[in-house]
């Protein structure tokens, strides 16, 4: 049963316990590998390149083919016609098109690039056969580092392109140069942000089931974007969308990397049709580290021009992104390079801004979206600059932020990028977080040496914005043809009076079944217990964009509000007919419709549904009304909605070991009108954990030849329960004035705030040794070298 306080008037805003927990806690969830395999399922295993860059001269499949249980061994040449090389970008200024074959035909471009595959009767035999395929490679010079890949003599990743620069962009506001040059001070810094991996606990995988009668394929896959995958598969295979159904069942974590179309999905679909058999592929963790798109690996050259009073006058940033070997569908190569400058102003009101950005191909796994995209990186850069400026000017670090952030009487505010901030609480979040941490007390106890009990202690403050709920206008401004931007919801009252909703989203743990039910419950006057929310299946849910970039609450919330509104009018007409009243006088409440002011004149949703579906002994159809109780709606918000927060980290840095411990972590968070405070807090806690991992130990490492050095969970460290403190957390609510329901997204702010808060805290702790924090991660060896005086 759900908790719903007696006497409270709305479901939205309540800490409703999750509906999805019952099946997940009993082991009854259905993740891709749990979907029952049809008889005759072929298990697909991939042979992956051990070289970062090589010519493939020959592939000998004969021994593998002769192994008992092997049905087929497939090479790049075998599928070249079935799956033409796919390009994720379109011809437009600044972009070069990289093509990716589903399996390499003549060249491999990163360690893990697919060379051949086996289809076998079980997964063990499929892996055995992989070891029996013999490939003749000619290694080519490889480059993994983004700056080396920019050099004129660097190996070219795509020989049909003139260099490795897949994307160049930039912009400068009118009058920038004059303002920049006339400022009292200019600080420059180069920030290097580590490459990380999403490490969803469920690796990628898919099951493609061919329907001979329909000549169509159903693809079960752990994706964040079922509808986009369907469009992409149809596009690249040259099929009609009606031949592809994509179903995302329970998905074991997404975080960004699962919002892309991967070669294995195209291969499984195409081969299921070719072999007229179900085809299943489940990756292991090694494959996940090798091939599931990485993220970050950015270099930011930042210049901040500011005056003696600490006010920022102009900011210039040059962004370099290591894009990896290929561009990815559907976001393309522009995502990370452009998201940096887009998010750079954050909460600050400077009026002059210039940027350049580049996306560079290297012989590494592609990079793409991971929680926050570039926002955590640029927020770390800006907050790091704020701390430097404060120290230089002898200002308190809070005071310099106060002089630059947008104050509440300035909303709605249009920032230097013409990004609209409808509402927010930058000062309020900052003030409350300072109170919670007792900032004055902390400073009073802090000595210039910073060291107590062998540990340097410091505090870091980050004022954070989170760009959420992007709609069609944003994607079309970026010319992203395969991202529609809107989302959809379908609502129906079943003949038993209960509500079934389906949305265009798939869920990776966000709690859609609960939060969308809360919104609908308020709109229709029913209990969340009488609402079932589904999604993730292109056949049974309305078309839409999907689950990423903190879109669910805004787009999904808006879509169910719109569908509820249409359904409500229809319910009222049936109720009015049954009660012989006017629809305008009908009130929906507690699973009933009653006449305004006369509660005893009422009919239940059950009775209304029986009438609407013609399940009554006499005709109960209102004049002019159709049978049935359904509504379909889409929602496209008028603008992105900007959530905000203040994060404060208190760290202890062990002077002997260099180990950083986060001792306290405070967040005051504002995502507009909160649907479910329990779930929002947990989203932030989880985001902070991921940011803490990136700040302190996570790093995908390649050597100079492009060999992956961090390919297991023993080499790639994700935070454990011993690393992550429990947040001290409060909500502030500044409802959005631009979105239906007043909601703003909340999925990414935790990461966006924790990189700067932790980096600034370590910077504060190490002030006495003059350390300069300009790269991540802050692993013990790095921290020790900072303490020992190797200036950053």
């Amino acid at each position, binding site marked *: 049963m759900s908790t719903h306080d007696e006497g409270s008037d709305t479901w939205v805003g309540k800490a409703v*316990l*999750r509906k*999805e*927990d*019952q099946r*997940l*806690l*009993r*082991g*009854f*969830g*259905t*993740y891709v*590998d*749990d979907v029952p395999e049809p008889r005759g399922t072929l298990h697909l295993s991939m042979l992956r390149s051990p070289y970062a860059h090589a010519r493939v001269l020959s592939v000998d499949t004969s021994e593998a083919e002769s192994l008992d249980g092997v049905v087929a061994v497939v090479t790049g040449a075998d599928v070249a016609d079935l799956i033409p090389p796919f390009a994720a970008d379109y011809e437009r200024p600044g972009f070069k098109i990289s093509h990716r074959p589903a399996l390499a035909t003549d060249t491999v471009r990163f360690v893990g690039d697919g060379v051949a595959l086996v289809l076998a009767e079980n997964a*063990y035999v499929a892996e055995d056969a992989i070891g029996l395929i013999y490939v003749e490679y000619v290694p080519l010079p490889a480059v993994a580092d983004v700056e080396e890949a920019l050099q004129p003599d660097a190996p070219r990743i795509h020989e049909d392109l003139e260099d490795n620069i897949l994307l160049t962009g930039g912009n400068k506001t009118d009058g920038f140069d004059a303002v920049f040059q006339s400022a009292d001070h200019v600080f420059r810094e180069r920030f290097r942000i580590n490459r990380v991996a*999403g*490490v*969803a*606990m*469920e*690796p990628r995988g898919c099951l493609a089931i061919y329907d001979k009668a329909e000549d169509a394929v159903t693809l079960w896959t752990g994706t964040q974007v079922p509808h986009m995958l369907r469009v992409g598969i149809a596009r690249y295979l040259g099929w009609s969308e009606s031949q592809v159904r994509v179903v995302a069942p*329970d*998905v*074991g*974590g*997404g*975080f960004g990397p699962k919002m892309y179309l991967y070669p294995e999905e195209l291969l499984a679909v195409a081969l299921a049709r070719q072999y007229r058999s179900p085809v299943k592929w489940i990756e*292991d*963790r090694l494959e996940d580290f090798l091939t599931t798109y990485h993220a970050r690996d950015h270099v930011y050259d930042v210049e901040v021009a500011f005056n003696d009073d600490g006010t920022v006058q102009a900011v210039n940033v040059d962004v370099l992104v290591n894009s990896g070997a290929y561009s990815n569908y559907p976001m393309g190569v522009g995502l990370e390079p452009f998201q940096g400058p887009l998010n750079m102003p954050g909460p600050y009101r400077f009026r002059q801004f210039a940027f350049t950005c580049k996306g560079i191909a290297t012989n590494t796994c592609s990079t793409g979206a991971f929680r926050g995209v570039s926002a955590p990186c640029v927020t770390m850069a800006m907050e790091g600059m704020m701390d430097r400026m404060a120290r230089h000017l002898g200002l308190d670090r809070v005071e310099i932020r106060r002089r630059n952030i947008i104050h509440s009487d300035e909303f709605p505010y249009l920032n230097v990028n013409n990004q609209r901030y409808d509402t927010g609480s930058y000062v309020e979040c900052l003030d409350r977080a300072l109170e919670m941490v007792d900032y004055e007390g902390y400073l009073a106890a802090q000595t210039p040496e910073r060291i107590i009990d062998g540990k340097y202690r410091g505090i870091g403050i980050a004022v954070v914005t989170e760009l959420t709920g992007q709609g069609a206008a944003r994607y079309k401004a970026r010319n992203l043809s395969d991202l529609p931007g809107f989302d959809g919801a379908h609502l129906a009252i079943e003949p038993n009076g209960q509500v079934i909703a389906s949305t265009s989203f798939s869920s*990776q*743990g*966000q*709690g859609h079944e609960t939060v969308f039910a809360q919104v609908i419950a308020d709109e229709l006057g029913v209990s969340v217990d009488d609402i079932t929310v589904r999604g993730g299946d292109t056949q049974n849910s309305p078309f839409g964009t999907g689950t990423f970039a903190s879109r669910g609450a805004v787009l999904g919330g808006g879509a169910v509000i719109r569908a509820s509104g249409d359904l409500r009018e229809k319910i009222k007409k049936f109720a009015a007919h049954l009660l012989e009243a006017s629809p305008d006088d009908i009130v929906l409440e507690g699973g009933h419709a009653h006449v305004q002011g006369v509660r005893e004149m009422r009919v239940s949703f059950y009775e209304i549904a029986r009438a609407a579906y013609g399940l009554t002994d006499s005709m109960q159809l209102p004049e002019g009304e159709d049978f049935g109780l359904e509504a379909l709606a889409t929602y496209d918000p008028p603008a992105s909605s900007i959530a905000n927060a203040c994060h404060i980290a208190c760290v202890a840095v062990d002077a002997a070991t260099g180990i950083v411990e986060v001792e306290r972590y405070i967040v005051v968070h504002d995502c507009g009108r909160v649907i479910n405070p*329990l*779930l929002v807090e*947990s989203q932030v*806690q*989880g*985001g*902070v*954990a*991921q940011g803490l991992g990136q700040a302190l130990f996570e790093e995908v490492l390649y050597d100079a030849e492009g060999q992956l050095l961090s390919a*297991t*969970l*023993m080499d790639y460290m*994700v*935070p*454990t*329960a*011993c690393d*992550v403190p*429990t*947040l001290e957390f409060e909500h502030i609510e500044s409802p959005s004035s631009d979105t239906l329901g007043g909601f703003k997204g909340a999925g990414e702010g*935790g990461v966006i705030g924790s990189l700067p808060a932790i980096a600034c805290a370590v910077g504060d702790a190490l002030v006495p040794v003059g350390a300069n924090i300009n790269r991540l991660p802050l692993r013990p060896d790095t921290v020790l070298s900072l303490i020992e005086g190797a200036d950053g």
Partner: protein
Amino acid sequence: MSTARREVRVTVNGRAYSRSVEPRMLLADFVRHECGLTGTHVGCAHGVCGACTVVLDGVSARSCLTFAIQADGKEITTVEGLAEGDSLNALQQAFHENHALQCGYCTPGFLMSLTEFLRETPDPDEAQIRERLSGNLCRCTGYANIVRAVQAAAQRLREEGRT
């Protein structure tokens, strides 16, 4: 390698299973594909993440690092064996009430590891809980609510005199 099949007889959640399997078959695959109990998940297949944890003769074990034939003659409990009839058990209920799961993929492994832990450590402090949890990885929750859930479950079990 020898692929000669061997007989494996186990009891899983109180039900007997007898299957003929290759010696190299992992216990995780046996439980999932031979017994059809797909609540046990494989997250890394190299013994780090703990998602595949089951209880083997009362002791927690990584089923991705255990061969099915090693479990021959033993009693196995998986996540499907925890609920008491239609009701979640105290630990599962505490996970629900404290929102200690998001995507739910790692959750069965946590529940099985903690089943053993709470039997051995009925009154744990937070440091002991975190130390134990560090053998399982969760990428969604940031662990705070899992810690709260373990504290709540331990208290409930003590009050009910079940530990």
